[in-house]
């Protein structure tokens, strides 16, 4: 079964064409810097037919990025896929697991756009575009929220009246679950620990969104993201944690226009808002000697370190800290700053290994470090393809895995 996986990040569109069950990769790539202009031009980094090439193209939105990717695959003579599988950021309270798309699913999915206004709308639009172009090809949705269904009540409950919590589903959902689950599994394997006896803090630091996941016994027990992907760390264009009274102040200044405040908090805040120059923390760190860039880097890294301390405490005794995704895998300075000063937790980096970890997965902790520090390349696409394959080949497919209401 050939499966094309589409993974909408807030500023990227990753794709992968895989043959299952052998997990042979036919092609893969990433459209980078999709959306607001950054210091460098948008591009597709494509790997197929044994070679890598970079195609520069304007990609103001994810739909355009998809069209460009299809062109690149056609140029490589990649055959049409049997299944298209989508990563969907927010499954809300309707989708507890992966599901095959039909009209009802598509309608229910559209209702969740407000919960993840950066991610769900382009992914939903992409699902619609794929269905209209290839109505005969089954499509599967795999949700980032599913892994976090194990977060206990004490962690997922907001201190709000019961009617809002229960009837309206206002609770922590958590995101990046596909990636967290994948890298935690890889890390447990590297350290030769059974997943059920593996405690870790998984740091998914993307070029757009970023979140930490507290993992105890292989299960998610907390996530820095909440009801929406807006909560938590300082991100590329998202503010992360914010005093509710400040959100109210902003609403009052906008005369109650929630859409306007949402745009500000989701699209022009975070690293972009603080630096006033770039939405990419790599650009900021490269110029961190400058006052505004320095301030931005400090705010980004400080919140990361505080959450790391918090989650190391929640999962104690921790076995590992796992870094992944674009920033987590490729920016040693971020790993060093996040782990710096955490010797009290038993976390000690090897500065040489951290600076050049080599092939991934890699252990970049000092030899005496009680808590291992791993850099693991995430592979959300493979995780999504596995889930889609499992769903479509299961005899009770939608009834079991695709439960939604």
């Amino acid at each position, binding site marked *: 079964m050939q499966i094309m996986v589409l993974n909408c990040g807030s500023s990227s569109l990753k794709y992968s064409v895989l043959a299952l069950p052998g997990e042979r990769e036919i092609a893969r790539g990433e459209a980078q810097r999709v959306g607001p202009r950054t210091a460098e031009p948008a591009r597709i980094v494509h790997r197929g037919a044994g070679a890598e090439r970079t195609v520069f193209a304007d990609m103001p939105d994810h739909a355009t990025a998809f069209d460009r990717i299809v062109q690149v695959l056609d140029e490589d003579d990649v055959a049409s896929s049997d299944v298209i599988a989508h990563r969907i950021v927010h499954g809300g309270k309707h989708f507890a697991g992966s599901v095959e798309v039909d009209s009802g699913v598509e309608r229910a999915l559209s209702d969740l756009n*407000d*919960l993840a206004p950066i991610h769900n709308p382009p992914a939903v639009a992409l699902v619609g575009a794929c269905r209209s172009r290839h109505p005969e090809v089954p499509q599967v949705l795999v949700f980032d929220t599913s892994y976090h269904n194990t977060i206990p*009540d*004490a962690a997922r409950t*907001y*201190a*709000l*009246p*019961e009617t809002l919590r229960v009837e309206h589903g206002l609770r922590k959902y958590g995101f990046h679950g596909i990636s967290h689950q994948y890298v935690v599994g890889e890390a447990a394997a590297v350290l030769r620990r059974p997943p059920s006896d593996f405690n870790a803090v998984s740091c998914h630091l993307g070029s757009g969104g970023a979140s930490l996941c507290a993992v105890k016994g292989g299960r998610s027990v907390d996530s820095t993201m909440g*009801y*929406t992907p*807006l*909560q938590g760390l*300082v991100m590329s264009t998202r*503010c992360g*944690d*914010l*005093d*509710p*009274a*400040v*959100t*109210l102040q*902003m*609403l009052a200044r906008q005369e*109650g226009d*929630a*859409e306007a*405040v*949402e745009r500000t*908090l989701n699209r022009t*805040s*975070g690293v972009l808002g*603080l630096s*006033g120059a770039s939405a990419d923390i790599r650009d900021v*760190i490269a110029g*961190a000697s400058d006052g505004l860039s320095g*301030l931005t*880097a*400090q*705010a*980004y*890294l*400080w919140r990361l370190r*505080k*959450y*790391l*301390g*918090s989650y190391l*405490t*929640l999962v*104690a005794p*921790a076995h590992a800290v796992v870094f992944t995704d674009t920033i987590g895998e490729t920016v040693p*300075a971020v790993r060093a*700053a996040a782990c710096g*000063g*955490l*010797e*009290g*937790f038993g976390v000690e980096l090897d500065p040489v290994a951290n600076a050049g970890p080599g092939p991934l997965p890699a252990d970049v902790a000092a030899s005496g470090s009680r808590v291992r520090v791993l850099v693991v390349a995430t592979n959300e696409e493979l995780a999504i393809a596995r889930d889609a394959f499992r769903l479509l080949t299961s005899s009770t497919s939608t009834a079991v895995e695709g439960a939604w209401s």
Partner: protein
Amino acid sequence: MNVLTLRLTSRALCCGWYVPELREPRWQHTSSWEPGAAVLGDSVATQLFAARRMLSSIVSGSAPDAIGIHLRHGGEVLDRPTRASEDVLDALKVVAAQAPLHIPPTLGLARIASQIFAGSPVWLVPETAFFCGLPVREQIYGLAGETRRALGVRRFGYHGLYHEAACDLVIGQRIRAGNQGPARVLSVCLEPQSELAAVRGRQPVMVTSGATPLEGLPGETSCGELDPGIVLNLARDFSIGPEQLDALLSRQSGLRALAGQPLSLGQILRSTSRNTRLAREVFAYRLLAACGAGCGALGGADALVFSGRYARQAEELATQLSEALVCALQGQTEPVCVHYLHEPLDRLLADATIRAAGPRARASAGNAAGVDGGLL
């Protein structure tokens, strides 16, 4: 020196008379005033006249050597206890918008006290002063510069008197034990709106509260940390205006919402009822998560101190937290010592006033300078 303390809550004026030879107040009195009033009426002046008569009857002809007035929010205008002059009171009007229910009445109280106790210096003692020097990386939100400036928001802590006294308690005990190094203190203030501060020596580096006390740990009626997306969803989907939302999040949420009934934090901590279990567990969980964040900020912890009116109900919490910290701090050989500060707020207010106004006033009172050690 003799100190008269004056503290306005949302419902009462609390007066205390402190003399050098006693830790307990020589006299204290609490009287109600109109809740939520933006300005003080004649009743408070009447109460202060009564207080003056009362003091005269206790010690003939006595006048306070200093009057210490509790100020919930001094913003960046007051980074230390400050003598209340007209210039200072005018300058604080700028901060009033950030705490409209607290600052205007307190400024009114300062003016009335200055008139009634003419000749006694009036000092404003801000809870926020301890946090003026928070490192910028801790103060700042992930918002664009123009948004931050337009809103005038930065993070503060709102229980500075308790935290400062908690740190002094730890420092004193360490000095007696021969340990001169700056302690890494997790200071937990258990009040209706509880707060955790992580402090190195006497310099706070992290605090759970935010631009207002609404952020952070869940309060008795306030929500604490909340995804900003929830606030926006409530505004959009339920068509609730900012003022109604403020009432919902400030007065109808928190532990009361989790327990389904209006209970104090002390009652929640003492309770074993199933009905209050969710409130107890959420509070304990958030506090543990905050302790971990504080350890991340400090690189570990030497002491865990409980203060505030519910500190006496903290024993079970203290056991849970210290066990969890021992398990988490795998690379730390020294234990995390647990302390309790049982001094009431008015005693701490009197102490702060004496430190500011007395003959041996601390030259470096206040934490004015926020110094960031770089993370990169």
